[in-house]
């Protein structure tokens, strides 16, 4: 049947539809919103909600169809539109617009459209009371458009379009409730920090461009991934610089040290947005980019080491910061940062497909966790503080169950999805010989289990805090529950596509991605060691989980005692290592001071305007004064000067 359908619609058309449908949705909803602000007509929630959900859903179906087609292809498993039109270019080269779906982007596109559709559906319930319903979906659909452009784009500049575009949507959605200035500020912060990363991205592109220019024939799309990969040899001299800069871009988008600071603040947006953009999809763009350019990154071992170290450090520090957060979404935010760190760690040790695997499972369980937290917040009238919760498992049974599944998944408990991907990361780190990184990462994995179970303990167990909202709204919105259930199922089975051979699986995902990535950079370890370590890591996670559960659901007093015992440490963590304050004091304030006091009020106003411009005016005025002194205003003086002048001239002529 699919084949029959395809006889009528060409694959490139279908591919173009994938990003364009959400764009259409965005335009439709945006228009409806704008017109509703100045007329009596209001679009019904059903209408704008349906448009918003159906568009990504169709995209998802198209991706699925293309996935099916690509699986059937013999050699490359990829489909492409080829160059659609030339965007811009120089005499020797060009940037063409074209879309391409290969093994990597198919997985990403499936995740993005799939999870994206679910979250759209969830949002219909979550946002049902909001005035900006249509606006919200316009932004969300626009986000999907840019995200799909990022994934499907077949060249670096096109990827950059998506890269900045998702940043824009993130900005708009974080500041969605802009009447709260703090939320608007969070959005701005996200965009500007991301811009710092983009600065690296752009410069990375320039390095590649400059190195590839001599190889190009007129009209070559030298910045397309296929061209870069076939000419990777020419890039060896600039590989380190280019990849480091590109990685700077990735640290911005994927919230790694030193640019992670925007992500916790980004929780100001509506919770489904946090789930979609700041957990499941956009923040993994950095990982996708590194994986996409793996042939370039393997040329620069230094960069890979930097990536591994940064990823590992982020994983650990973010986990420590997650330990003490009181805001349910902040815990999840730091958890996201930490998990992204794991993914970069995997990239850094050359295990690209493992990183992508974790991207996928993380998308499932983190989206689930966020949506679950959204469900809790929705039930608690917008209250986000964990200390105001307690004992919610009776009131919100479905949320609790699914949330628990997500927690087990992230904690790395067999057979949930997170176990397979996280275990694969730790195994690859260990087997590649990075012992210390492995040790820290393992510690971070333990902390993950700890803070997640702390969250579950605080929110769902124990007694209700009497200071919190009295009434818990029951969960009865199907649109909100259905995505939770679907994601819960995915969080359980999602990892099964990557069961390693050591555990008797087939590791489908590795096989599927293998053609894209270089064969393992190092010797694969012993299979029995791998099995042993898998068991070990699960036990390790379980131990931490149990400790947290005891501390926070059974004996909360103990936790407070511990906090009091390690007060310094606790304060440091609660204040997030003072990173925001340090950035503010070291970068932002000096820059503002420099701009205002030095550049504007000194250089522009005094040096240029007063001294140079005003100075020349003063000199001119000085001459003017001399002239003025001769202007007495008395007519006889003028006549006298006239006569004197004519006498002088006459005398000159006679003599």
């Amino acid at each position, binding site marked *: 049947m699919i084949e029959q359908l395809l006889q009528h619609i060409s694959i490139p058309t279908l591919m173009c539809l994938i990003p364009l449908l959400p764009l259409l949705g965005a335009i439709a909803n945006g228009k409806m919103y704008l017109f509703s602000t100045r007329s009596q007509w209001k679009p019904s929630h059903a209408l704008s909600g349906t448009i918003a959900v159906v568009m990504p859903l169709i995209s998802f179906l198209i991706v699925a169809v293309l996935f099916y087609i690509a699986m059937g292809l013999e050699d490359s498993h990829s489909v492409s539109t080829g160059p659609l039109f030339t965007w811009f270019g120089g005499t020797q080269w060009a940037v063409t617009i074209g879309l391409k779906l290969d093994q990597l982007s198919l997985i990403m596109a499936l995740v993005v459209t799939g999870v994206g559709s679910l979250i759209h559906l969830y949002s219909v319930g979550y946002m049902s009371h909001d005035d900006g319903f249509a606006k919200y979906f316009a932004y969300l659909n626009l986000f999907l458009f840019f995200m799909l452009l990022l994934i499907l784009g077949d060249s670096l500049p096109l990827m950059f379009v998506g890269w900045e575009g998702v940043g824009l949507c993130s900005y708009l959605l974080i500041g969605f409730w802009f009447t709260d200035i703090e939320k608007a500020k969070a959005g701005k912060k996200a965009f500007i920090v991301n811009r710092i990363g983009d600065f690296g991205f752009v410069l990375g592109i320039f390095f590649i461009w400059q190195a590839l220019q001599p190889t190009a024939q007129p009209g070559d799309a030298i910045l397309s991934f296929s061209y870069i990969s076939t000419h990777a040899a020419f890039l060896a001299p600039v590989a380190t610089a280019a990849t480091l800069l590109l990685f700077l871009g990735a640290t911005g988008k994927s919230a790694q040290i030193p640019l992670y600071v925007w992500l916790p603040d980004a929780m100001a947006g509506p919770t489904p947005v946090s789930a979609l953009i700041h957990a499941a999809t956009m923040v993994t763009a950095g990982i996708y980019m590194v994986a996409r350019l793996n042939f370039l990154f393997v040329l620069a071992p230094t960069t890979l080491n930097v990536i591994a170290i940064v990823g590992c450090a982020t994983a650990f520090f973010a986990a420590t910061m997650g330990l003490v957060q009181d805001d349910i979404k902040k815990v999840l935010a730091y958890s996201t940062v930490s998990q992204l760190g794991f993914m970069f760690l995997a990239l850094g040790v050359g295990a690209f497909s493992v990183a992508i695997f974790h991207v996928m499972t993380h998308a499932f369980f983190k989206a689930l966790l966020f949506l679950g937290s959204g469900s809790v917040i929705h039930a608690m009238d917008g209250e986000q503080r964990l200390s105001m919760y307690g004992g919610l498992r009776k009131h919100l049974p479905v949320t609790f169950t699914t949330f628990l599944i997500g927690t087990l998944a992230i904690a790395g408990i067999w057979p949930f999805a997170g176990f397979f991907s996280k275990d694969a990361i730790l195994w690859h780190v260990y087997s590649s010989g990075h012992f210390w990184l492995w040790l820290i990462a393992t510690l971070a994995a333990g902390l993950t289990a700890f803070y997640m179970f702390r969250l579950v303990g605080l929110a769902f167990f124990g007694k209700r805090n009497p200071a919190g909202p009295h009434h818990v709204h029951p969960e009865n919105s199907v649109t909100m529950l259905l995505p939770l259930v679907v994601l819960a199922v995915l969080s359980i089975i999602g990892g099964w596509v990557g069961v390693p051979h050591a555990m008797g699986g087939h590791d489908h995902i590795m096989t599927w991605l293998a053609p894209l990535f270089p064969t393992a950079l190092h010797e694969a370890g012993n299979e029995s060691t791998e099995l042993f370590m898998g068991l070990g890591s699960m036990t390790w996670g379980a131990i931490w989980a149990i400790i947290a559960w005891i501390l926070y659901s059974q004996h909360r007093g103990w936790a407070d005692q511990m906090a009091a015992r390690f007060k310094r440490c606790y304060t440091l963590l609660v204040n997030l290592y003072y990173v925001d304050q340090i950035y503010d004091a070291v970068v932002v304030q000096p820059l503002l001071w420099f701009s205002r006091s030095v550049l504007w009020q000194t250089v522009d106003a005094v040096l240029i305007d007063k001294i140079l411009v005003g100075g020349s005016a003063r000199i001119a005025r000085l001459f003017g004064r001399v002239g003025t*002194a001769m*202007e007495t205003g*008395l*007519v*006889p003086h*003028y*006549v006298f000067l006239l*006569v004197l002048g004519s006498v002088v001239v006459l005398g000159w002529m006679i003599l």
Partner: protein
Amino acid sequence: MEITVHHYIVISCLLFIIGIFGVLTRRNLLIILMSVELMLSAANLALVAFSRFSSHLDGQVAVLFVFIIAAAEAAVGLGIVIAAFRHTSGVRVTSWKELKG
């Protein structure tokens, strides 16, 4: 002794200098204007004398034009005097300092 053009020139020069002297030293605007008329007359005398001694009548035509200019000058000049008088109730040139820079 024959009267030559030079005699007339000397008279013309003297008239002119007297005119200048008047313009420079007097403060009554009317008398300054009269002194200007003197200077114009000096020029007229020179023109007629040259015309006579070089056998061209063009000089005399020029004098007629000077008359016209003098008339125009007197009309405008006296208009200014009246306007200035209204302004400061006097015609002393030293009482006007609007041109001071």
